[in-house]
C-alpha cells in the first residue's frame, strides 16, 4: 500500500466504525484450551473432597420434592376401596343368633336388632326368615337406605 493510497483513504464515519468493530468482535475466535487442563484441575480438586459426614449431613438436610400423580394411583385407590368393602367396612358383627333373638324379645320394635338378625339369617342361607326381619327393620326406619338395600339383596337371593 503506497503513501498516496493511504492519503486517498477517507476516515470511516462513527457509525461505520462501530458496525465494523461489532462485526469484528462478533467474529473473534476462542483460544484453544491447553491440553490436559481439565485433568490438572481435577487432580487439584481430589484432595479437597468433603469428609463423608459432611456429605451425609447434606443428604439428610437437603429439601426434597415429592410429586403425586392422582391417575397413577387411581388403580391402587380402587383396590383399597374394594378390599375395605369386601373385608371390613360392611361386615356385620358376629352376633350369635340366639343372643339376637333374646334381644329381639326384649326390644321387639328395635329396627337395628331386626336388621342384624336378618343379616345373620341371610348369611346362614335362611333367606325366607331373614326377609321377615329385614322388611320389619325397613318398616320401622323407612328412611334407612341400608335396610332397603339388604331387602333387595334378600329378594335377589330368593331369585324373586
Amino acid at each position, binding site marked *: 500500500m503506497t503513501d498516496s493510497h493511504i492519503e486517498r483513504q477517507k*476516515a*470511516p464515519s*462513527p457509525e461505520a*466504525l*462501530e458496525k*465494523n*468493530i*461489532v462485526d*469484528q*468482535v*462478533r*467474529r*473473534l*475466535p*476462542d*483460544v*484453544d*484450551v*491447553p491440553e490436559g*487442563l*481439565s485433568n*490438572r*484441575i*481435577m487432580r*487439584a*480438586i*481430589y484432595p*479437597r*473432597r*468433603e469428609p*463423608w459426614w459432611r*456429605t451425609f449431613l*447434606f*443428604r439428610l438436610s*437437603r429439601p426434597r420434592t415429592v410429586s403425586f400423580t392422582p391417575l397413577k394411583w387411581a388403580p391402587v385407590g380402587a383396590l383399597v376401596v374394594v378390599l375395605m368393602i369386601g373385608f371390613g367396612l360392611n361386615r356385620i358383627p358376629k352376633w350369635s343368633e340366639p343372643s339376637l333373638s333374646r334381644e329381639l324379645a326384649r326390644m321387639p320394635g328395635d329396627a337395628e336388632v331386626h336388621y342384624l338378625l336378618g343379616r345373620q339369617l341371610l348369611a346362614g342361607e335362611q333367606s325366607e326368615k331373614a326377609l321377615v326381619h329385614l322388611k320389619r327393620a325397613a318398616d320401622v326406619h323407612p328412611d334407612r337406605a341400608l335396610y332397603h338395600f339388604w331387602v333387595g339383596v334378600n329378594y335377589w337371593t330368593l331369585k324373586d
Partner: protein
Amino acid sequence: MLTAEDDQMVEAVLTGNAEAFGGIVRKYEKSIFNLMYRATGSRDEAADLTQDAFLRAYDKIRTFRLGRKFYSWLYALSMNVARDHLRKQRRRRPESAQDPEDTAAHPSGATDSGDEAARLAEIHSLFEILRRLPLDDREAVLLRFRDGLKMKEIAARLGLSVSGAKMRVHRGLEKLQKAWGGSLS
C-alpha cells in the same frame, strides 16, 4: 447451557461425588480459560487462573442456589478471580500491567500464510486493542456483541445493575472505537 443438567451435576457434587465436578470443568473450561486469557494475555497465566477459578467454585459450590443459571454464577466468580489477579499484578509491577507477556504471540498459537494470515493478523490486532480496555468494559462488550446476551444477563455475570451493565457496554464500545480509530490513523 442447560440449567437442569448443571443442577444435576452440582447436586451430585454436593452429595459427595467429586467426579461429577469433572463434567462441569469439561463443559466450561473453554469459556473460563478464554475469559482468563483475555484478562492476562498469557496462556500459562490463563491456565493457572482457570484452575484457581474452578477450585474456588468447588470450595464455594454450597453457596450456589439450585435452579439458577450455574454458568452466570461461575462466570461472576471467575471475574472476581481475574480482578484479584490483575489487582495483585498492578501492585507488584505497575509498569508491566499495561504490557502483557506474550502479546506478540497469536491467540491460538497457530501460524498461517496468505489470506488466512491477514485475517489472523486482523483478529490479533483487535485482540490487542481489546486488551487495552479495562476488564469489565471489555467483557461487557464481548458478552453483548459476541455472545449476544441481554443486558440483564450481562449484569448478572458482571455483578452489576442493568443500568451499570448498559453503561459498561456503552463505555467499552466508545473506548474501543477510540482505540480502533487511533490504530487506523
